């Protein structure tokens, strides 16, 4: 047992009384989007603008034997054609971007344009900029490209075999991890039962509605300026490195992002645009088609995961031995980190003393894989939660009871030995999600009804050895309105709005008096990436700090003006007013100097601050805790700042004649720490759940011998409004997160439990498990046939 840690758990009613935080206010960005006034990256045009297209590899593995662009260059209206030969030194950095000062991993640089060989279907080979899109398209047709196919690697196992063709770099093993905790052999020996299963998950496409787009130009100071939809404006550094120009000569102006989910975390159009704008000295626009968006950008990693679990008859897990194999695709990108996440969360939210995990990611000539909402967590969760139900089944135990015996609690340690410091409300979440399903729907002769749930834990905030930081500037204007400046990219989850609500809370103004300027690498303080469910945590804390300094000025001046001590001043509703400190009697003063309903307008206070030199603006930097990394032999160490815990439960009806699965009910319960905006948090849960249900039942990006088979939204199907019912979102607020006001992160975690919950529900309905996603009709039908003779154990739901 580890040292007992006092949980910071507070029941919600002990949280401070708040005025703006915790209210389901209309998000600051909502109306502009609803009336169609918000501009996205593809909506901008510039005078004299050129249009760009990219020539891409039509095969997955081959040699470039001829690449002649002379005819394309000669076409009237073509301004520029670039190939790898024109850019001998240009490298695309694919390592973790952002605020980290760490050196990039060796071997992580990819070519900007393929020169000698192509390594995946869709790899960029040449760039064209022309007066019109039609001319650019015509020019692509005039490029003489001859390729000679070469043997490729089309599954990760093959990539790791001796003698396999080398995809990229010196080793097809792109990354691997080892975790050793306790003594797994001893733990297995103590077990009454050992259960082993292997699980598979496929490639998945982000399929945000907005394809990648941008416009770039060189400004009057010679700065390459790129207006682009991205989750990472810090890619100005990646662009500078690729072009060999100083970092202060590249500016990224992020636009509102039409969905990211990790797919706009890596560089997309930025370097192509910068190269063409520099070469032509004209503005250049590049917008991917849907098919190009599918071919050109990353996917969620396919994984093969094996769990061997030793368990006592009581349900106590004594040992877990887990192996993971991931497909990294042609270039490394963020694979090493995704694999680390999957490895660190491989055993789930369970306290297991003896653990052995070995994970490896292998290069293939397939689409490259990188960040996707959950970052390795959803794959891990599908495996560990399917396995938990299989263990429960083997023990003839209720699945919730089995988990209850093993759930991690505050103070327990994860597989890497990291202690859980915040609330770990797994049991509460699972119980509530299950209860929300209500009465069970009865079976009909050809429709079997089943129920399943899944628990999970998922980090928020970046890996701690990245030394993550965020900055925000908060200022009050002389009329009492507030401005936030923060480099946060808003990818639709309400990133900007949360910061505004925090500033409104601290400064005591209504939300509509707060404006935000965001996402400009030159003009807004750098806030780091909108990834890793980190912006509320990181930039929220930066805004909290900055606003706190401004508040201190206002309170000090207001106290002087009101003739009271600062402790007796409160800021609310745009006014400063007198409150008595706790224990000193009456609450709010009944009169005030201005005579306006008990308060003094903040505009008056701000004006007096300004005339007496008190700062009305502040730039704050928030630093995440830093650690040094894991021990390479044992995998011991702290990885993340904190974790979110939750669960999702679903009820499904399985048609045993057709294999069709209908989700009848879905409920998800998450401890969000603190819901800064409950409507927005609920939106994250409903949306994340829907993506997770799509992952469960329909989504598979099909790749055959490296070639994409599903290059459109009519072949790669994502959920529509009629596929699934709404997921009921149940928000718990432990107040124990490391974010502002005790918030945890919910953006990524909301997706994680859906797929294993559905898999468990189908297994409950049929008595037979399906071990791979997606849970297609064919697989369900086969399971239904196999299940005809299975006697289901009695479950006590």
């Amino acid at each position, binding site marked *: 047992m580890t040292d007992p840690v006092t949980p910071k758990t507070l029941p919600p009613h002990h949280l401070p009384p708040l005025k703006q935080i915790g209210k*389901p*206010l*209309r*998000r600051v*960005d*909502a*109306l502009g*989007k*609803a*009336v*169609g*006034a*918000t*501009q*996205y990256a*593809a*909506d901008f045009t510039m005078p004299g603008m050129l249009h760009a297209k990219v020539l891409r590899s039509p095969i997955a593995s081959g040699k470039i034997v001829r690449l002649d662009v002379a005819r394309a260059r000669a076409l009237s209206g073509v301004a520029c054609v670039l190939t790898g030969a024109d850019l001998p030194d240009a490298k695309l950095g694919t390592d973790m971007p952002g605020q980290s000062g760490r050196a990039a991993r060796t071997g992580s640089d990819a070519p900007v344009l393929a020169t000698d060989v192509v390594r995946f279907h869709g790899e960029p080979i040449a760039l064209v900029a022309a007066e019109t899109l*039609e001319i650019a*398209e*015509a020019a692509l047709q005039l490029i003489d490209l001859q390729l000679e196919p070469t043997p490729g690697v089309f599954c990760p196992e093959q990539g790791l075999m001796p003698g396999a063709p080398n995809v990229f770099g010196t080793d097809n093993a792109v990354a691997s991890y080892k975790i050793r905790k306790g003594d797994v052999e001893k733990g297995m020996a103590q077990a009454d039962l050992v259960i082993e299963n292997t699980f598979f998950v496929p490639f998945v496409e*982000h399929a*945000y*509605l*907005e394809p990648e787009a941008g416009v770039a130009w060189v400004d009057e100071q010679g700065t390459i300026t790129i207006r682009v939809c991205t989750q990472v404006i810090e890619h100005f550094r990646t662009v500078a490195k690729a072009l060999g120009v100083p970092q202060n000569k590249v500016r990224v102006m992020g636009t*509102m*992002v*039409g*969905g*990211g*989910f990790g797919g706009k975390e890596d560089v997309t159009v930025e370097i192509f645009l910068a190269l063409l704008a520099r070469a032509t000295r004209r503005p250049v626009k590049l917008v991917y088609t*849907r098919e190009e968006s599918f071919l050109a950008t990353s996917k969620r990693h396919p994984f093969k995961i094996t769990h061997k679990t030793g368990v006592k008859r009581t349900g106590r897990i004594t040992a877990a031995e887990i192996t993971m194999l991931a497909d990294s695709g042609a270039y490394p990108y963020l694979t090493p980190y995704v694999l680390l996440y999957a490895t660190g969360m491989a055993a789930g939210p369970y306290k297991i003393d003896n653990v052995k995990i070995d994970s490896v990611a292998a290069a293939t000539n397939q689409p490259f894989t990188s960040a996707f909402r959950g970052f390795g967590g959803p794959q891990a969760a599908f495996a560990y939660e399917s396995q938990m139900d299989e263990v429960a089944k083997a023990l003839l135990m209720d699945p919730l009871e089995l988990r209850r015996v093993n759930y991690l609690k505050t103070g327990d340690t994860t597989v890497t030995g990291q202690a859980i410091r915040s609330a770990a409300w797994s049991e509460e979440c699972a119980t509530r999600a299950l209860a*929300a399903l209500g009465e069970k729907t009865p079976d009909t002769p050809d429709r079997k009804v089943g129920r399943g749930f899944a628990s999970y834990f998922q980090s928020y905030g970046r890996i701690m050895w990245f030394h993550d930081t965020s900055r925000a500037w908060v200022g009050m204007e002389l009329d009492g309105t507030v401005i936030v400046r923060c480099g946060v990219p808003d990818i*639709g989850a309400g990133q900007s709005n949360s910061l505004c609500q925090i500033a409104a809370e601290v400064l005591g103004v209504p939300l*509509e008096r707060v404006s935000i300027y965001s996402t400009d690498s030159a003009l807004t303080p750098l806030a780091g990436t909108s990834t890793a469910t980190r912006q509320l945590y990181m930039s929220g804390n930066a805004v909290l700090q900055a606003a706190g300094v401004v508040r201190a000025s206002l309170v000090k001046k207001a106290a002087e003006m009101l003739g009271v001590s600062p402790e007796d001043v409160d800021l609310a509703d745009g006014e400063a007013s007198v409150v008595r400190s706790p224990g000193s009697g009456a609450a709010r003063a009944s009169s005030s100097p201005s005579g306006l309903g008990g308060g003094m307008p903040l505009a008056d206070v701000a004006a007096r601050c300004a005339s007496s030199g008190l700062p009305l603006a502040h730039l704050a930097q928030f630093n995440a805790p830093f650690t040094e990394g894991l021990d390479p032999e044992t995998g011991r160490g702290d990885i993340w700042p904190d974790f979110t815990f939750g669960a999702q439960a679903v009820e499904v009806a399985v048609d045993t004649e057709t294999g069709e699965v209908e989700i009848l009910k*879905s409920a998800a319960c998450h401890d969000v720490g603190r*819901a800064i905006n*409950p*409507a*927005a*948090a*609920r*939106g994250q*849960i*409903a*949306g994340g*759940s829907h993506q997770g249900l799509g992952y469960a039942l329909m989504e598979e990006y099909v790749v055959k011998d490296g070639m994409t088979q599903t290059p*459109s*939204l*009519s072949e790669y199907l*994502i959920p*529509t*409004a*009629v596929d*699934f019912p*709404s*997921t*009921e*979102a149940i*928000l718990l*607020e432990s107040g124990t997160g490391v974010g502002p006001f005790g918030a945890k992160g919910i953006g990524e975690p909301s997706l994680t439990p859906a797929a294993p919950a559905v898999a468990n529900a189908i297994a409950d309905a049929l008595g037979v498990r399906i071990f791979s996603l997606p849970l297609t009709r064919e697989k369900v039908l086969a399971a239904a046939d196999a299940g005809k003779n299975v006697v289901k154990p009695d479950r006590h739901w």
Partner: protein
Amino acid sequence: MGGADVSERKITLRVNGRTHEVSLPGHRTLLEALRDLGHTDVKNGCEKGDCGACTVLLNGRAVNSCLVLAWQADGATIVTNSGLGTADDPHPIQTAFADAGAVQCGFCTPGLVLSAKALLDANPNPTEAEIREAISGNLCRCTGYSQIVEAVRLAAVRSLKGSGEASHRGQSATDGSHSPSGSRVTGEVQ
């Protein structure tokens, strides 16, 4: 582009009360024509009729503008989302989308608002199933559709109550932490 009709045609596009006299090649889609004319609230999500982001009202009917050739809309009345209202004077459906938390990244929103408009024009009091059916051609990757369905219902309820003023109040939205069921459509919320 082989076989495409590249001969220019002179047509009139009536968009949001504005009239554009333009000369366009025959293969130009209405989506491309509208965006080139500055109606960038009409979004391009696929150009293949798969996503609904390019939805416009063509003589009152919701269509995917990427599947319509511009000349086919010659003389027709076209309404895009911006034609319904502005931030200063939003259409009640737009207000309902903002109030109900139906807008996340917003890329699907212009198209969804128009599909909702076409539905409510034909059926002012739709059931949840009717709402879902009516918006099933509009993909949204962010919201899971729950708050979109609520927004359409909210717009319907507000308009049935005839409280045009009430719909402009703003700042009201569903409070997820107290909502009895995300799958239930409850209409007016405070």
